[in-house]
């Protein structure tokens, strides 16, 4: 503009009025601002879309990631008399304590390796010949040369001290930040207080058991209530006699003195030459194992304490291999076995019907784990989960998990270090301590989810106490030794089952209704029916769930035979009505359109349903031997009548087609005039139906005589909240969606196709089924897919009506637990970042993926359909 002004002639004529053409700054700014805001906002929503997926995946990822080693530290071993009977550490890994065979208790500060002075036991200068401790390590038993036993406690006492009450004269421990008064460790914690950790050790007096021989092997467990503990222990003495003993502590109410009484039973079957290398006893003291280096394991059934029985003798180190180490995993039903060839196996005690043992259980190798390159020397079970560590002769320590059978971490020793003489897990399963005579090593690691692998989540897993590998979802139970069983397969199955049964019910009704609305009714009916259906799609699913669970389930339970019969009776009634309708003169038929037929169909449906309700007792007598629930669980009656009923439509259809093919021309000719055609058609229908019924009954009789039964599988034991109810209730949610989308697809088929077909002489039915439906097929498919997407993700209905039993079976009358319901039920209880929490996120991700696939498929097909119809 400025150049224009410059080149203008000087002042010959007055400059014409010019409007300023600059856009106002405010408008420009607003435009720019809007531009940026909208772009940013739009992008942010798109980012959010993907953010959801990424976030879910990010929470799930640690489930499948390997653990991490946080650090390794070593310190010289506080050399004391003899080998270490126990190594223990406290929950916070501040202190490591050891107990030697001579009763010497020593402790070091874990981070710095500095010695601490702690109280020791007094064995009067004697040396224990055998020692054992409980899994948590705080209860010990020592066996001596003279055959006596002493019990001892070693515990870490943890106190919180206010900063004001801090004792004077604390010295720092290395540069760890911890302080000490010489015997305890003080750690400052976040609240400003000090945590004091000290060792408390106490030992009881000698207890004699039957033998005077030196004790060679011992194992010890404490059970019973805390105020009256029952200590059970098993010993093998130098003479080769195994004994099972129980020590009970009784407090004298008058004197206040405690008395320990020991009862002992001898374990049979140990020959003189047997050198028992390890003895094991479980918490309940009803299982005792003796193992020899050769691999022979003797299992005793000590459920009757006074009379233990040798239940089983097996060889768990076949060939020339030697058994080097054996230990219980927590729960004490599985044994981990290490051999001198480096192999590590897990044995389960499993009930078997054909067991050759006296108690019906057998010890079987359940899992074979990755081998060490050299022989295994030590096995250490974890104190909380099913983790354990194996150490080999070269000093390598591998951390593994018993249930998932995975190798979690490989821990390398200090260069040149010897194989560990002891190996122990820290109480929180977050560190391992090994000791090899000259030094000890502390490995800290973080293994948050050792129990999950792709295999345990999606495959069969063999859990302790189970007869075989299974798909199991059981996330919690009452006991501490309980191991969560987290397989998603039963839940995915539940989702698929609910989806399948609901679609089985919904698709025929929704598609039928859509075709009828689009092709056989006028615009006025459509204007009423369609919005009503659309409104139904917005019905809150919690309402459906409530009605299904509280209203429908009891009704269906009390009238189950009527409900089942209605599924067959309604179509049959409609077909029968159609045949009757043929008798109406053609002219009258033509006068009434779809609305009348719809009204009549409604009447027929209502009539059939009420007929079913009225006839229910009779029908129950005929088909279900008078009591459906007893019948379906296989207790009474035969399935002859129901089988005949199920065969009948098939036989009917076969007959109908056969008569069409063979005598069709003759039948056609017989139906001379249009006025009688309807009557003849009805007659033919009735004759065929009767003939089919006779044949179906005969066929059913033959099948039942041959041992066939429709029960078991899809029809099995009845529970009130079952898949039938879920399918029906979900139908309410899914039918409107499939109906609307497919009805849209049908009406989108161009009118000229219909006109052409009708113009060529095709009937309305022929036009519908041969022209319109094929043209709309992809749209209809998309509709079913969208409906399926909704069914897969539906939550409230399955939570309320499905009974929530995570079982894999197709039984129509059993409940199910779907992914969505499982999340809704268990998420409120899941601790943040726990394994269950992440598993539920995985369930959500699975659900996301399932619907994503289904919906994308629907979307792609729908786009193709749109293009297709546009081209027509």
């Amino acid at each position: 503009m400025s150049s224009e002004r410059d080149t203008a002639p000087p002042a010959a004529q007055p400059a014409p009025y010019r409007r300023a053409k600059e856009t106002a700054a405010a408008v420009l700014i607003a435009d720019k601002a809007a531009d940026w805001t909208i772009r940013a906002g739009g992008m942010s929503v798109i980012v959010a879309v993907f953010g959801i997926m990424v976030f879910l995946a990010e929470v799930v990822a640690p489930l499948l990631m390997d653990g991490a080693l946080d650090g390794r530290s070593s310190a010289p071993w506080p050399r004391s008399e003899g080998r270490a009977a126990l190594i223990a550490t406290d929950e916070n890994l501040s202190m490591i304590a050891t107990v030697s065979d001579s009763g010497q208790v020593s402790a070091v500060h874990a981070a710095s390796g500095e010695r601490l002075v702690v109280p020791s036991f007094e064995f009067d200068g004697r040396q224990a010949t055998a020692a054992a401790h409980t899994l948590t390590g705080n209860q010990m038993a020592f066996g001596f040369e003279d055959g006596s036993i002493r019990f001892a406690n070693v515990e870490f006492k943890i106190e919180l001290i206010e900063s004001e009450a801090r004792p004077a004269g604390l010295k720092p421990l290395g540069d760890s930040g911890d302080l000490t008064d010489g015997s305890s460790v003080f750690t400052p914690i976040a609240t400003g207080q000090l945590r004091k950790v000290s060792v408390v050790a106490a030992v009881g007096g000698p207890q004699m058991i039957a033998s005077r021989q030196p004790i060679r092997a011992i194992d010890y467990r404490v059970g019973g209530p805390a105020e009256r503990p029952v200590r059970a222990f098993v010993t093998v003495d130098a003479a080769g006699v195994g004994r099972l003993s129980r020590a009970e502590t009784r407090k004298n109410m008058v004197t206040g003195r405690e008395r320990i009484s020991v009862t002992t039973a001898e374990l049979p079957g140990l020959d003189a030459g047997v050198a028992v290398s390890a003895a094991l006893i479980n918490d309940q003291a009803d299982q005792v194992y003796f193992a020899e280096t050769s691999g022979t394991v003797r299992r005793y059934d000590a459920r009757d304490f006074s009379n233990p029985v040798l239940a089983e003798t097996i060889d768990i180190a076949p060939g020339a291999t030697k058994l080097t180490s054996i230990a219980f995993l927590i729960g004490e039903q599985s044994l981990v076995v290490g051999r001198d060839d480096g192999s590590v196996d897990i044995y389960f005690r499993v009930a078997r019907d054909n067991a050759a043992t006296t108690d019906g259980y057998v010890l079987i190798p359940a899992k074979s784990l990755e081998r060490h390159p050299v022989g295994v020397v030590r096995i250490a079970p974890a104190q909380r989960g099913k983790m354990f560590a194996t150490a080999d002769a070269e000093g390598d320590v591998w951390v593994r998990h018993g249930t998932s059978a995975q190798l979690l971490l490989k821990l390398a020793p200090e260069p040149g270090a010897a194989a560990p003489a002891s190996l122990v897990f820290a109480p929180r399963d977050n560190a391992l301590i090994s000791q090899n005579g000259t030094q000890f090593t502390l490995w800290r690691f973080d293994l948050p989810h050792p129990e999950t692998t792709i295999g345990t989540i999606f495959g069969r897993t063999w859990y302790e106490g189970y007869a075989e590998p299974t798909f199991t979802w059981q996330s919690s139970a009452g006991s501490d030794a309980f191991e969560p069983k987290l397989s998603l397969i039963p839940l995915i199955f539940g989702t698929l089952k609910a989806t399948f049964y609901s679609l089985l019910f919904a698709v025929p009704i929704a598609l039928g209704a859509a075709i009828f609305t689009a092709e056989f009714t006028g615009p006025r009916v459509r204007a009423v029916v369609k919005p009503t259906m659309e409104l139904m799609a917005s019905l809150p699913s919690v309402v459906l769930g409530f009605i299904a669970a509280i209203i429908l389930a009891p009704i269906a339970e009390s009238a189950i035979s009527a409900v089942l019969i209605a599924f067959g009776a309604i179509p049959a009634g409609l077909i029968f009505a159609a045949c009757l309708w043929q008798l109406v003169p053609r002219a009258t038929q033509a006068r009434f359109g779809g609305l009348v037929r719809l009204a009549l169909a409604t009447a027929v449906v209502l009539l059939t349903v009420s007929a079913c309700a009225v006839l229910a007792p009779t029908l129950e007598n005929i088909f279900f031997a008078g009591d459906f629930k007893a019948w379906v669980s296989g207790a009474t009656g035969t399935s002859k009548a129901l089988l005949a009923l199920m065969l009948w439509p098939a036989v009917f259809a076969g007959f109908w087609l056969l008569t069409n093919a063979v005598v069709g021309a003759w039948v056609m000719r017989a139906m001379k005039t249009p006025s009688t055609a309807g009557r003849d058609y009805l007659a033919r229908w009735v004759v065929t139906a009767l003939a089919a019924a006779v044949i179906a009954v005969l066929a059913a009789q033959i099948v039942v005589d041959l041992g066939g039964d429709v029960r078991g599988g899809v029809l099995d034991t009845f529970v009130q909240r079952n898949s039938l109810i879920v399918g029906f209730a979900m139908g309410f949610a899914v039918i409107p969606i499939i109906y609307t989308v497919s009805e849209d697809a049908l009406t989108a088929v161009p009118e000229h196709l219909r006109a052409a077909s009708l113009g060529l002489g095709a009937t309305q039915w022929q036009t519908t089924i041969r022209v319109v439906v094929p043209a709309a097929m992809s749209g209809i498919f998309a509709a079913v897919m969208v409906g399926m997407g909704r069914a897969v993700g539906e939550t409230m209905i399955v939570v309320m009506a499905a009974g929530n039993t995570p079982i894999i079976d197709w039984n129509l009358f059993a409940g199910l637990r779907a992914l969505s319901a499982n999340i809704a039920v268990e998420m409120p209880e899941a601790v943040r970042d726990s394994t269950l929490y992440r598993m539920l996120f995985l369930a959500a991700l699975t659900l996301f993926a399932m619907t994503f696939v289904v919906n994308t498929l629907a979307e792609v097909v729908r786009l193709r359909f749109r293009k297709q119809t546009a081209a027509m």
Partner: protein
Amino acid sequence: MTSTSNLAPTASSNLSRTVPAKADDVRSRGEPFTWLLGGALALGCLMIAGLLALVVWNGFVTFIPKPIEVLTENSGAISAGERVRQESFRPAPDVVAKLSATARENVAGNGGYATRFLIKTGNFDLYGEDFKWVADFDVATRSLPRDMVLVERMEWGPLIGRLIGMTVDGTSVAVTDIADPRFVDAHRAARDRWRKIADLERDDIGGINARIEQERLELRSIELSEGRGSESYRRAAVTYESVAAALAKDHQRSTAEAAALVDTNKGFTATFADAQGTSKTVALDAIVRLYAANDLSWFDKIAIYLARWWEFLSDDPREANTEGGVWPALFGTFTMTLLMVVAVAPFGIVTALYLREYARQGRFVAFVRICVNNLAGVPSIVYGVFGLGFFAYLVGGTIDEVFFQERLPSPTFGTGGLLWSSLTLALLTVPVVIVATEEALSAVPRSIREASLACGASKWQTIKYVVLPRAMPGILTGIILAMARGAGEVAPLMLVGVVKLAPALPIDGTFPFIHLERSFMHLGFHIYDVGFQSRNSEAGKPMVFVTTMLLMTVVFGMNLAAILIRNRLKTRFATAAF
């Protein structure tokens, strides 16, 4: 084909073999199949109608006062109650064997079936059950005594019996008629005192507690920032002590006032005798409503019916939510939906504007559209999981660490709450708004846009003054549909902030008035909770039906509003088109 044969009935047999006529005509018309299709539509319509009828019928009749029947059974047992429903059942053989000859014949004549009905006997505190099945053949006599009274109480469910006396200020008064003015006045006064106590507890005592907590948190935050040994902490601690002492005095005064009222109310009781004669004394202030069920005029019935509706809509729930009102749930649903709209509308519209007006139409936008459609199909529970993990734990946890450190370890925003619920549902419903807005934008003719641009309007001016107003009906429809979807959704809320019983409404008189971090109650969850988790689902059933009707009314109302707005604005703009 048909027409051919009809027009030429004399056609040769040759022709009729190749073109079989009449019967094939029957087949080609596919009559049985059309009937099946029609039956499908009929069944679908019947299902919907049945469901609506079930909910609406039960919802409407729940609050109608029912007569109290007093039944004497053959065994001599007497029970009184409202008849709930009846059904036919098959009595066990040993029961039938004990019946009288005529009763046995009746049962046998019915094919082994007999009728029984469920009566709501109330008096849970006396007999440990509040429902009873009575078989028809067991009933010896039945009567409708005019003095039987139904008492709705604060706890233990209803009481059914006769008034046999009362105490006024500790002295007993012989009153046997609930319409007696002495009784009516005493009851009204006791209820007024009760309301006053509730007000005192909620507003005065609750307010003082909140202020003490506020002071404590301030002290704690100074402790966190300055340390315990600092000068400012010591000073704050002294201030805190004095303020707390002053508040404690207020607290004491209010508590004493409330306690005095409670003491007064203890002197006012009513004693009832049930049908069997067992007497039960109830404090007058614990009686919400009572009426002689068999002695009601039409006017009384309507008055009770309306009063119950009003209580339902405006009161707090009682008895583990199975009685009383749903006001907190209604309010929670409303607040949550409103907040959700505030979050979802701008983002949905902006995204649609971006996709339709700003982004270059290409593969990327097509892909994003598929994603948005996909999001609409993602199960709602997945959003709940995301909301819990991301909003509550991650974002909320961070907010707590930065702003509410003094309250840790108890979470403020780091757990489910109103804000997170609204945002989660906003995420859930944003595809609905995007799709609707996009459709509305694409329906605005290109010519209008071009005209505006040609007149010199900027892009934003065009959008603001030309495109958006014309697209508004569609956008509004989308927003209302999103609201309807959000209001009816329950599953995700179970993870991100809905509770069975919230201690306070999310909006109240204490600063900052809108408490976004509070958990709230919701109609949908109320249905789940009462219908599914309560002690006695039979007792809660009527309540669930009314709540269901209310929720359906809210959701359907919004959907209808969407349709109406769409239609109205459509016609308005249709005339303005050029």
